[in-house]
């Protein structure tokens, strides 16, 4: 316990701002998200229109990052792909965080049989190799955005459920919870208003790391041709054909991967900074 830190009046936000790498990462992520969001208005090209005469052009003044095998502007597709990849990543991370919090909170608060049942299931989900199953599931589906989000959520909630359950187990023995019960406050209100806010530090850190996991999983699936389906671009599926043109058009392989890498690196740095800022004792 380090109460002096909190009593000194330094808020977590102030501590996060001191973490230089985390702030740079936050800024980078913000820029990537903003530019992707504004993409259609920033670029004169269409992300889907095919121009076979202009295929595989190297970076130039009119096509800053070159064109792909169908003559589509790579930068424009990267921006559109950013919308898709970040949307899938954020939504999947958010939904799996919600699922994890719900399962963890119910499990830890009520304990007993429900706890055993839910935690056994969590253990089972954690002990199966997720990637082969992700491949099979996405192959069985049609590869729509929401389907990919759903598949990622199925495999994304477990670690958070465990963390939240752990915090709930210790917090529910606290006197403020007892007093809330004595006052006749309903269970769901105790869970939401009295216990949950106290578990937010690890939840935020793990949810951030989950975002990285979701972006990575989506791009892996899409790279394999099992995720987001063309012509809709995602950073992963833009690499799908890039490997064939490695000799003649290496820029096709470099830029989408670079964006995935920079996003993941930023998310990981941000997670690290958040961990330092919110809970210095927390270890991963």
């Amino acid at each position, binding site marked *: 316990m380090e109460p002096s830190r909190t009593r000194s009046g330094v808020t977590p936000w102030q501590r996060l701002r001191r973490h230089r790498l985390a702030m740079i990462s936050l800024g980078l992520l913000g820029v990537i998200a903003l530019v992707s969001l504004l993409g259609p208005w920033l670029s004169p090209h269409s992300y889907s229109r095919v121009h076979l005469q202009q295929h595989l052009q190297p970076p130039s003044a009119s096509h800053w990052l070159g064109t792909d095998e169908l003559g589509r502007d790579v930068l424009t597709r990267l921006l559109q792909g950013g919308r898709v990849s970040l949307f899938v990543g954020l939504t999947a991370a958010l939904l799996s965080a919600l699922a994890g919090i719900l399962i963890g909170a119910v499990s830890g608060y009520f304990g007993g049989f429900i706890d055993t049942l839910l935690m*056994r299931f969590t*253990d*089972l989900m954690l*002990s*199966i*190799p*997720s*990637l*082969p*199953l992700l*491949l*099979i*599931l996405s*192959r*069985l589906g049609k590869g729509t955005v929401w389907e990919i989000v759903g598949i990622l959520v199925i495999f994304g909630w477990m670690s958070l459920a465990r963390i939240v359950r752990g915090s709930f187990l210790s917090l529910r023995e606290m006197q403020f919870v007892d007093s809330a019960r004595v006052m006749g406050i309903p269970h769901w209100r105790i869970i939401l208003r009295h216990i949950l806010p106290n578990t937010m530090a690890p939840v935020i850190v793990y949810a951030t790391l989950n975002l*990285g996991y979701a972006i*990575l999983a989506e*791009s*892996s699936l899409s*790279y*394999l*041709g*099992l995720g987001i389906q063309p012509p809709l671009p995602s950073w*992963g599926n833009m*690499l799908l054909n*890039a*490997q064939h043109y*490695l*000799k003649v058009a*290496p820029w096709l*392989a*470099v830029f989408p*991967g670079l964006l*995935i*890498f920079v996003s*993941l*690196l930023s*998310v*990981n*740095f941000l997670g*690290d900074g958040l961990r330092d800022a919110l809970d210095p004792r927390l*270890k991963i």
Partner: protein
Amino acid sequence: MYRHLLKRTAQTIPVVFFVTVVVFSLMQLAPGDPMDMLVLSNPNVTPEEVERLRAVYGLDDPIYVQYFRWLSQVVQGNLGYSRLYHRPITSILPQRLANTLALTGLSLLVSILIAIPIGIYSALRQYSVMDYLLSMVAFVGISFPVFWSGILVILLFSVVLGWVPPGGHPSIEPGLGFWGQARYYVAPVLVLSFFSTASWMRYMRSSLLEVIRQDYILTARAKGLPGRVIWVRHALRNALIPIVTLIALTIPALIGGAVVTEIVFSWPGMGRLIFDSLMNNDYYLAMAIFLIFGVLVALFNLLAEVAYAFLDPRIRME
């Protein structure tokens, strides 16, 4: 101790059972009912004939009957027939499994040999410039998507420099010497071990730093033991315990990474096989591979428990 191990062994049974249930349920969902395939390949088959064959093959039985019939076949080593390779699945898997284990095993070895010394070094020189740089490298390593590092490695070492083949397996070029064969391993092992090296060196570092704060280290110092003895015999040995478990526990992730690596490098292992089978709608083969992966992971988790119990007397005494 034995009771503990027995209990752990018993706990892997539900995991394996769960994997079989998942596999079987997915098979029901998979498109390409065997009868549809039959009709597709031979349009002259009459509906009556299809009905008769459905009854013969037991496709109209209740689902749990079908499940247990399937399970009893699996237990006897019959995983079904591959549509893609026109061979029994059990005859395809051993060679592929050997290739995957060679790749993951080698990467595991490389990662351990690099990560543990570096992690120790970082802990010994905590907050030094080198420690800071190494932790940056670790962040880069865990943020590098395997498929992209794979593509970049091919671009650099194969397309530009021409040092290693852009993919494939030594078995496609018979009569290669040791170094000729080794060239095929360099790129995939490099890519696959990068990620695990990055995360394990971080764990090694924090585990050692955690141990060094313990009271028994203080006691050892108070006894006047030399620094080297304290670090090696008291700190390092204890710090390695969680690392051993962690390594066993991250093997599922390694297998996952191997799936993507194998696909990038056309490495003829289980990962490449599951990809090829899915792309060719050979779902039974894909499920069989997933089943093998599930059992493998359960075994490795059990192995982690056993190793932990052996290494840590506190667990043994329970």
